[in-house]
C-alpha cells in the first residue's frame, strides 16, 4: 500500500467513522439517561436518510429535506419513548433489549412498506466535483459529513457543560435518584435525551446517504457498529463514543485495504468482542462495569 492509497483509506475511514461516532453518540445519550441500550438506534439513522430522500423526491429543497427528516425522526423517538421505554425503565435488561429490538423491526418494515426495497440516494450537498488532497481524492460530501459531525459534537459538549439543563442531564446520568431529589425532572431528561438522539441520528443518516446510499435494511449493521464504537470508547462517555467511532471507521477502512472487503463488517464485531472480553470499560471508561 503506497502513501496515496493509505491516505485514501484514511479519508474513507474518517467518513464512515463520523457516522459511527454519531450513532455511538446516540447510544451514549440514551444509555446515560436510562441505562438502556437502544437496539433500534441504527434504524433511526436509516429513517433519517430515507425520510430525507422521500421529502426531496416530493419536491422539498435539500436543506428542507434535511430539517424535515430531523424533525420527523425526533417525533418518532419521542413517541417511541412514551410507548415502549417509559414503562420499561428499570425493568430488566431482557425486556428492554427485546422491546427496542421490536421497535427496530417496526421501523425497518415501515420503511420498506413506505419506500420499497431498493436502496436510494440523495444528491451531494454541494456538488460531486472531487478534490485532491495529497494525491488522494475526496468528495465534498466527506467534508460536510466530517464538518457537521464536529459541529454537533462540540455543540453537545458546550450544552452539557455550560447550560443548566445540560448539567441536569449529566446529573441524571451519574445518579438518577439523587438528581430527582435535587428537583430535576427525570422524565423530562429522558424524553429530551431521546429527542436529541433522534435528531443526531437523523442528521447522520441524511449526511451519509449521498455517499453510501440508504436502504430499509441499512440500519441494523450501522446500529451494531455504532454500538461497537460506543463500547470501544467506553459506554456512557460521549468523548469516548466519538473517539471509538473514528477509530472503528479507520481500522475498518484499513482492514479493507489489508485483509479483504468481504470481512469488513466482521472487524467491528471482533473489536466488540475483544473490548468486552479484555476491557469492558472501553478506552476512556472509568465507571466499573458489572462483571464477575
Amino acid at each position: 500500500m503506497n502513501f496515496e492509497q493509505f491516505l485514501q483509506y484514511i479519508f474513507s475511514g474518517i467518513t464512515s467513522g463520523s457516522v459511527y461516532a454519531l450513532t455511538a453518540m446516540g447510544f451514549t445519550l440514551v444509555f446515560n439517561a436510562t441505562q438502556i441500550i437502544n437496539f433500534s438506534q441504527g434504524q433511526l439513522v436509516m429513517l433519517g436518510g430515507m425520510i430525507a430522500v422521500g421529502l426531496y423526491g416530493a419536491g422539498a429543497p435539500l436543506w428542507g429535506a434535511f430539517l424535515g427528516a430531523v424533525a420527523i425522526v425526533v417525533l418518532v423517538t419521542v413517541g417511541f419513548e412514551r410507548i415502549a421505554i417509559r414503562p420499561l425503565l428499570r425493568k430488566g435488561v431482557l425486556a428492554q433489549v427485546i422491546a427496542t429490538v421490536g421497535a427496530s423491526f417496526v421501523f425497518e418494515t415501515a420503511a420498506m412498506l413506505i419506500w420499497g426495497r431498493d436502496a436510494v440516494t440523495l444528491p451531494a450537498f454541494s456538488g460531486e466535483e472531487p478534490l485532491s488532497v495529497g494525491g488522494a481524492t475526496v468528495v465534498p460530501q466527506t467534508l460536510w459529513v466530517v464538518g457537521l459531525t464536529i459541529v454537533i459534537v462540540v455543540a453537545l459538549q458546550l450544552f452539557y457543560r455550560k447550560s443548566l439543563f445540560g448539567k441536569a442531564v449529566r446529573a441524571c446520568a451519574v445518579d438518577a435518584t439523587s438528581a430527582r431529589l435535587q428537583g430535576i425532572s427525570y422524565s423530562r431528561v429522558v424524553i429530551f435525551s431521546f429527542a436529541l438522539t433522534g435528531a443526531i441520528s437523523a442528521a447522520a443518516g441524511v449526511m451519509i446517504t449521498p455517499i453510501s446510499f440508504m436502504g430499509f435494511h441499512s440500519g441494523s449493521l450501522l446500529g451494531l457498529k455504532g454500538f461497537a464504537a460506543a463500547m470501544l470508547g467506553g459506554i456512557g462517555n460521549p468523548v469516548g463514543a466519538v473517539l471509538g467511532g473514528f477509530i472503528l471507521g479507520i481500522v475498518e477502512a484499513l482492514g479493507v485495504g489489508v485483509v479483504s472487503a468481504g470481512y469488513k463488517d466482521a472487524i467491528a464485531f471482533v473489536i466488540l468482542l475483544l473490548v468486552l472480553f479484555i476491557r469492558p470499560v472501553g478506552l476512556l471508561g472509568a465507571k466499573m462495569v458489572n462483571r464477575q
Partner: protein
Amino acid sequence: MTGLDTVVAYLRRHAAYLVFAVIVMTIPAYLSDSYYLSVLAFMATKFMMAMGLSLLLGQAGQISLGQAGFVGIGAYGAAILTTRLGWDPWLAMGTAALVSATIAGLVGMPALRLKGYYLAMATLGVNEIIYILLIQLKGLTNGTDGISGIPPLSIGGLSLSGPRAYHLVVWGVALLMLRFSLNLSNSRVGRSLRALHRSEPAAKSLGVDTSYRKVQVFMLAAVFASIAGSFDAYYVRFISPESYTITFSIILITGVIIGGLRTVWGAMWGTLVIVILPELLKRVNDDITNLVFGVLLVAIMVLWQGRTRGLWQMVKERRSRSGPGGPGPPGAGE
C-alpha cells in the same frame, strides 16, 4: 409397595410428559396433510432450540442473543460433511454438535463472565461473526448461494424423506431432549443453576462452581441448537446463510419469554407461538409479518415488565414494584 403402585406413581409423576409424548407421536396416524406435517417438523426443531435457551435463560438466567449462530453451525456442519465428504448424516450431525459445543465452550468462557447487556451484546457479536463467516468462507460454504443437494436422514438404509417417518424421528429426538431437560432441571445441576440465577455470590458460597456451570449450560444450549439445525438441513435439503441471523436469535428468545421461563415446558408454548403466528401472518400479507411481530414484541415486553414468570403465569401475579435487588429478571440486578 407393590409393583403396580410403583407404576402408578411413575405415571402420575410424569403424566404431563407422557400425555404430550403420546399425542405428538400419534399425530402422523391421523394427519396426512403435508403442509401441516411440515409446520410440525419445523416446530420440533424450533422446540429443540427453544429448550436449550430455556435452560440457559430460564434456569441459569444467562441471556444469549446468539442461538441462531449455533443453529447455523449445526446446519452447515451437517451439509458440508455429507455433501463434500460423503459422511453418514447422523455422524455428520454428531460431529457438527461437537464443533458447536467446542465453539460454545471457547466463546462461553470469556463471555459468561459478563452480565446483562454485555453478555447480550457479546453473544450477538458471536452470532454476527458466524453469519459473516458463513457468507465469506465461500470455498467451504458456497457463500450466499448456500448448499443444495443435502441428503435426507435414513435409519439402516431406510430413507426418512417421507414426512411421516421424519415426523416420528425428529419429534422422537425432541421428546428425548425434553425428558433430559426436565430431569436436568429437577436434579442437583438444575437447582444449582437456579441458585446462581438468583444470586451468584450466594450460589458460590454454597459451593456451586458458577462459572463452570454457566459454560456447561451454554454449551448444552449450543448442542441442542446445533442438532436442530442439522435436522432442518436434512429436511429442507438446502441451506443458505440468511436463516441464521440475529433476527432469528431474537425471535427464539422471545418465544421462550412468551412461553414462560420457570420450566422447560415454557419452551413448548413459546414454540407454538413463534411457529404458528408467522404462518398465520403470511396468509394475510408476507410483508407485514415483521411489522406485526415488532409491535407484538414491544407490546409483550411492556405487559411482561421483565418478571421471572412468563406471560401465561402472569395473570395471577399482582403488579408489585420489585426494586432492582429483588428476585428480578435475568440481568436486572446491577
